[in-house]
């Protein structure tokens, strides 16, 4: 049995942690979140130039580092821990995955190489105002017009949708329902008919947007995957993104525990550190338990994700692993963040202390791509079929 990071993976994790501790300080997070863009160009530049993270799991033939999903998850955990405000998640965990799984050879060559050299940010848009996360979320429509496609629709809750330069968009053939009739398109954000609006989210560390497509005309080379049959691929992209989110949640879950331990050891009341009181100890122990279970689930899911991309016996478990991880990590992160506020006492309720930033990110990432109840239902369906 060998269920742990290799030495190389540990190094990647540790390097990521050290770098993020430097560039994603509390001050950096607060500066970035106060802008509508949601990230500082200079910092994203540094990430691309110094760490080359924008190319982490993209194959070498496109200029990528060709690392695996486990390495990606190791990095994402640290990014969640430091609430990194950057287009990394949307570009790599949504769009790049979509390109790698559904893109044509030309699209992969063209767009992945630009992502790798740091000159292109991208995201994925599929859910409508209904805020669902399965195939039913897709309400935007596509019709053919000669050799072109015409898209119409409103998409919501799109991470970095207002700043991404490339939009991977799902639309369904008029009249189709459920998993049928879905197509994927690669749309440059400046295509006529595309308008994007920033949405006011209570978690300011991850920006979301509404995207409206009004008679957007696309030539054939923008189609990704098989026309009207892209759901199987899109579903896989969603599952991979779900695991990526769970990895960030695990990092955040750990961070609020660490902040709480540090605070309760320092805070003295009634002549001793409040950490010495049993009620406080028990809560901290519960927080650790939740984090460790969540971490176990997401590391396993990372292994499954890796094999689902590059082949292996675990590949068939992707759906289940994603839902299990998202359930544990969503509840664990939110409960931990909530307990962290409580254990910080008065300062936990101030803007100045970082705990509320994690509390809000815990909730927004819980809601993104389906909360614990949604995923538990998916697992139940898998079990009962």
């Amino acid at each position, binding site marked *: 049995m060998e269920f742990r990071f290799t030495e190389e993976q540990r190094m990647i994790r540790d390097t990521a942690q050290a770098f993020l501790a430097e560039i994603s300080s509390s001050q950096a997070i607060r500066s970035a979140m106060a802008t509508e863009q949601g990230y500082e160009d200079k910092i994203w530049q540094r990430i691309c130039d110094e760490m080359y993270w924008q190319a982490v799991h993209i194959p070498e033939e496109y200029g990528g580092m060709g690392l695996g999903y486990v390495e990606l998850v190791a990095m994402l955990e640290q990014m969640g821990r430091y609430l990194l405000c950057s287009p990394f998640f949307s570009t790599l965990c949504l769009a790049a995955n979509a390109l790698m799984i559904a893109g044509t050879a030309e699209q992969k060559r063209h767009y992945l190489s630009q992502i790798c050299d740091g000159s292109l940010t991208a995201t994925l848009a599929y859910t409508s105002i209904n805020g669902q996360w399965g195939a039913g979320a897709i309400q935007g429509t596509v019709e053919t017009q000669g050799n072109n496609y015409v898209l119409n629709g409103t998409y919501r809750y799109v991470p970095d949708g207002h700043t991404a330069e490339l939009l991977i968009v799902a639309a369904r053939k008029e009249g189709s329902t459920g998993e049928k009739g879905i197509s994927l398109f690669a749309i440059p954000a400046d295509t006529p008919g595309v308008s994007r609006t920033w949405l006011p989210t*209570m978690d300011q560390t991850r920006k979301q947007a509404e995207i409206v497509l009004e008679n957007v005309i696309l030539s054939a080379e923008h189609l990704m995957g098989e026309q009207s049959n892209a759901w199987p691929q899109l579903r896989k992209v969603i599952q991979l993104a779900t695991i990526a989110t769970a990895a960030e949640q695990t990092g955040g879950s750990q961070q609020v525990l660490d902040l709480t331990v540090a605070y309760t050891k320092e805070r*003295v*009341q009634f002549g001793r550190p409040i950490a010495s009181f049993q*009620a406080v100890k028990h809560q901290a122990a519960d927080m650790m338990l939740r984090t460790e279970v969540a971490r176990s689930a997401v590391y396993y899911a990372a292994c499954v994700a890796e094999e689902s991309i590059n082949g292996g016996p675990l590949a068939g478990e992707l759906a289940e692993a994603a839902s299990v991880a998202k359930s544990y990590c969503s509840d664990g992160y939110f409960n931990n963040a909530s307990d962290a506020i*409580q254990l910080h006492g008065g300062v936990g309720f101030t*803007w*100045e202390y970082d705990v509320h930033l994690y509390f809000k990110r815990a909730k927004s990432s819980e809601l993104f791509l389906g909360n614990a109840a949604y995923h538990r239902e998916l697992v139940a369906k898998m079990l009962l079929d």
Partner: protein
Amino acid sequence: MDFNDSKEEAAFRETCRAWLNDNAKRKASPDEVFGRGMSAAELMQAAREWQGRKAQAGFGAITWPEKFGGRGGSPIQEVIYRQEEGKYKVPVGAFNVSLGMVIPSLFVHANSSEAKQHVNDALHGKELWCQLLSEPNAGSDLGMIRTKAERCTDGRDGWIINGQKVWTTLAQFADCGLVLTRTDPDVPKFAGMTTFYVDMNAEGVEICPIRQANGEEEFNEVFFTDVFVPDIQRVGDVGAGWKVTLTGLMNERLSIGGVIPPELWRTTIKHMQECDLGDGKTALDDGVMRQQLSDLYLNAQGLWLLQCRGLTALGQGREPGAELSVAKIVGARTLQDFSYFAMDLKGTGGILTADDLGDSWRLVEQLWMGAAGMRIAGGTDEIVKNNVGERVLGLPPEPRTDKGKTYKELLSGS
């Protein structure tokens, strides 16, 4: 047992209703919140005006003795008034600390004509008072406050205060504040404190707002640098500061009637109706969610019953005891559950703020973050549970390392 208004209570309720009908606008829905679009300063001004009108009509401070401008009424009358007022779109809460906790200490412990003038001004909304208790090193452990008051040695009949207070609600608008200070470090911590009232505009008083996790700035840090306070502004004897503070904290119980906005469960049903589960079903058709609705209703009912028991005790001149402490925990948790459930029902849209979702979402948004604060402020859940365990249940206290020592000894120890 009788939960109906007694004849006298019903008559009083009618009086309140009649006056409110003539003097205020009714809320369009139970979760309407007064003050949308108003700045904090405008809200404060509106609160002062409303307080003034209430005071003129005899509703300004119902339980105060008549000689101080109250009606000499019972706690249940105060609760009845607040229940009725809750149906109207008026600014509530700004004067709760002034009139509910701080000023009553004045009329029990301070007798000067100046003090009497302050009492009258506060009642009529002309003066807002704040309470200066907690400090960075003294939150739950309030006994460890360091802000000190030293007798003047230059011939003036007064004291010089130096130190820092934190979490002072509405200090930025307060005219006066009641401050707890250390006057004798050579006795056990609770014995060496004295209370004064200060002019918040006095030289040496500096107020700095603290931004809260919900983005608002209700609380403040208040710094005292060589602030002169005449002895006539001392409230109670030297060394009686803790006793004076307890008088104020006792009066906090009058707020037990108004913790939960009425009929939150109706709002929840509305949210459930709007939650589309597909196939023509809404959350109202989902068994798990119906259970959550029931839970919310049960908790709100349970809380109301706890409050009734507490009020009964108060009305009969007894201490409410356990019911009151536990009510705080249940109240905060119920509000948290309501807002968390509303968030779940909204689904992904819950990521957004009321700026996108509309005004009717504002209550949920406020409670979602604010409920976390409720479990901490005014006695954390953990301290309340300690007290319930040790004082109500009589469980052996945890070993205390801070008993039987002077304040000075404790300071060097920690």
